[in-house]
């Protein structure tokens, strides 16, 4: 890093208020719980970058923030819920999706986002992931995949590439890893995309597209974990990972998801893989009740409990 330091005319005057240009408002700031920033994520961690892309998607999509709820699980990405200024729920490990399902069923007007990590969503949460996709529950799932269990110190996740080193596979991972887009497509998701934290603009666009869609949307974002995955595998820091994403990503929209599995050092296929139409769970539920019950069917009105 020291190579990057420009020594010309450097002094602490740089930190003066006049030079901070506080008349420029960060467009993302209103979406953050500023009283809790700086956040806990490591230097070079990509989660914050995904939150940036997410916030910009909220701006572009003009979504009514009052109708938005964000649900996360446990893990580094799970902490996103605590940093965004909206109705947010930091739930239990693996169970963000069923909690989000409950929110959506009780109040169908809500736009419910699930924002969680690869371990949380595909290991302990795997069962809920596939069933929600099967049912096509109207959820927008952002899965930040840093290929590891970061929060707890770098253990193997179902997404950790074969041959990499983790704290619970100190001699190298000998399992195959999940190809999440393939898994989720097979389970029934109507929108499946993968980007990396390098693809900030495309990620914003994908999140925006997911907001326009009804049904189970899944966006995987490959993100660096410099402290654990990168360091243990001698892959440099967060910036090195970002350069790797830039160099080794190939955008292939519509690629068959069976072909987008990741390896430790291979290319990363990114893009929008699946974008289909299928009635969502609530549409099918109401349709079935209308058909079976006819006039006896009573629509769920706003929950009146107070």
């Amino acid at each position: 890093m020291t190579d990057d330091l420009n020594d010309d005319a450097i002094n602490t005057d740089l930190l003066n208020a006049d030079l901070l240009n506080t008349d420029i408002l960060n467009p993302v700031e209103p979406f953050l719980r500023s009283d809790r920033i700086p956040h806990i994520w490591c230097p070079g961690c990509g989660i914050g970058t995904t939150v940036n892309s997410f916030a910009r998607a909220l701006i572009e999509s003009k979504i009514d923030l009052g109708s938005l709820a964000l649900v996360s699980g446990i893990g580094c990405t799970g902490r996103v819920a605590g940093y965004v200024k909206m109705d947010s729920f930091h739930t239990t490990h693996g169970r963000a999706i069923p909690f989000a399902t409950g929110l959506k069923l009780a109040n169908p007007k809500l736009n419910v986002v699930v924002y969680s990590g690869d371990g949380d969503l595909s290991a302990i949460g795997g069962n809920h992931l596939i069933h929600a996709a099967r049912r096509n529950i109207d959820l927008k799932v952002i899965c930040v995949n840093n290929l590891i269990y970061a929060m707890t110190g770098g253990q193997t996740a179902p997404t950790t590439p074969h041959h990499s080193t983790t704290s619970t596979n100190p001699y190298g991972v000998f399992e195959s890893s999940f190809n999440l887009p393939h898994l989720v497509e097979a389970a029934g998701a109507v929108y499946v995309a993968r980007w990396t934290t390098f693809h900030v603009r495309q990620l914003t666009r994908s999140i925006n597209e997911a907001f326009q869609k009804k049904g189970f949307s899944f966006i995987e974002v490959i993100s660096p974990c410099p402290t654990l995955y990168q360091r243990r595998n001698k892959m440099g820091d967060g910036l090195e990972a970002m350069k790797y994403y830039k160099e080794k990503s190939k955008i292939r929209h519509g690629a068959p998801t069976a072909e987008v599995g990741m390896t430790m050092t291979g290319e990363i296929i990114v893009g929008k893989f699946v974008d289909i139409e299928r009635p969502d769970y609530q549409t099918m539920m109401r349709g079935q009740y209308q058909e079976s019950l006819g006039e006896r069917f009573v629509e769920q009105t706003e929950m009146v409990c107070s």
Partner: protein
Amino acid sequence: MKADPRGVLTGIHFMDGDHACCEGALAAGCRCAAGYPITPSTEVVERFASRVPTVGGTFIQMEDELAASITLQGMVWGGAKAFTVTSGPGFSLMMEHIGYAAMTETPCVFVDVQRGGPSTGLPTLPAQADMMQARWGSHGDYEVIALCPNSPQECFDLTIKAFNLAEEYRVPVMFMMDEVVGHMSEKVVIPAADQIEVVPRRHTHKSVEDYLPYGTNGDGVPEMAHAGEGYNFHVTGLTHDERGYPNMTLPIQDKLVRRLQSKILNAVDRITMFEAEQLEGADVVVVSYGITSRVAQRAIEAARKKGLKVGKFRLITAWPFPEKKIREIAAKVKAFVVPELNLGQMVREVERAANGQAKTYAVSHAGGGVHNPEDILKVIVEASR
């Protein structure tokens, strides 16, 4: 507030406890449920699945109890009253989320129609062996309220009470049925909706700027908001401060966890429900709950016919345990006799509360059936000596 008539099946019915419990939930204003099938509880949600599309609400059968127990909490934060229903093995799976409900102060009801255990045990036969689990099943320090109906009528009435207590104290309430009460059919009178008192959600009226999601009011119970109302609140299972923000420090932990405990324990007198009979001048008091209380009644009457002075104390709320009441009684009687369909659970609480002032006799039963009244009578006689 009065019950919403759309959910009240007013009339005189002949139904079993499981079905009555479902009607109680609907009468209480519950319009959402998430469940997973498990004998002998399944009928509760089967009926709910059948009833709720004609009343206006949602039932979803989730992929497992882990999901059901948290989906119902999402339903609550989305604005509904919600519950789930299970038995032993499912109850065990739900424990993490019972703790989450306690920590986040999510008002909801967990129905456990107890069956023989441990493990898969006796799926179609009764037991009362989850009573301690109802209180201590999740990790950490927290309080719950637990109710024990002993008839289908009580399955209706007390389910409404369970929802009311959940809303009043923002706490998960354990509804501890057993397989016999769940599967026995008796007369159930469901009154008109305007005869049914229902406690509404303690929703805040504060502005967005002033609202604190976990700000304590006088009684230690915070006001609630729902997702989608513009409050931009945060809920977490991490130790949190009044803003709901994670604050994992010793003073905040102390303040929070003690408040979760005190909001219930300070209200023990208001929460406690029991049925007492002939405590005055009693030598022996039989403490029982659920189906066992029906069998114990036979034994008590037989003992009184023998000339013994036997009082009855039926726990309707098992948790928080009515320590003070038991201690008062203990000062005046020779002994307690505690029949349960387990190898000794609530008897430990009775003994603890009695504090040596009276003897305590357990009448244990490994489960799978109800006691023989003679077995309870035998112990009453022995305790009276």
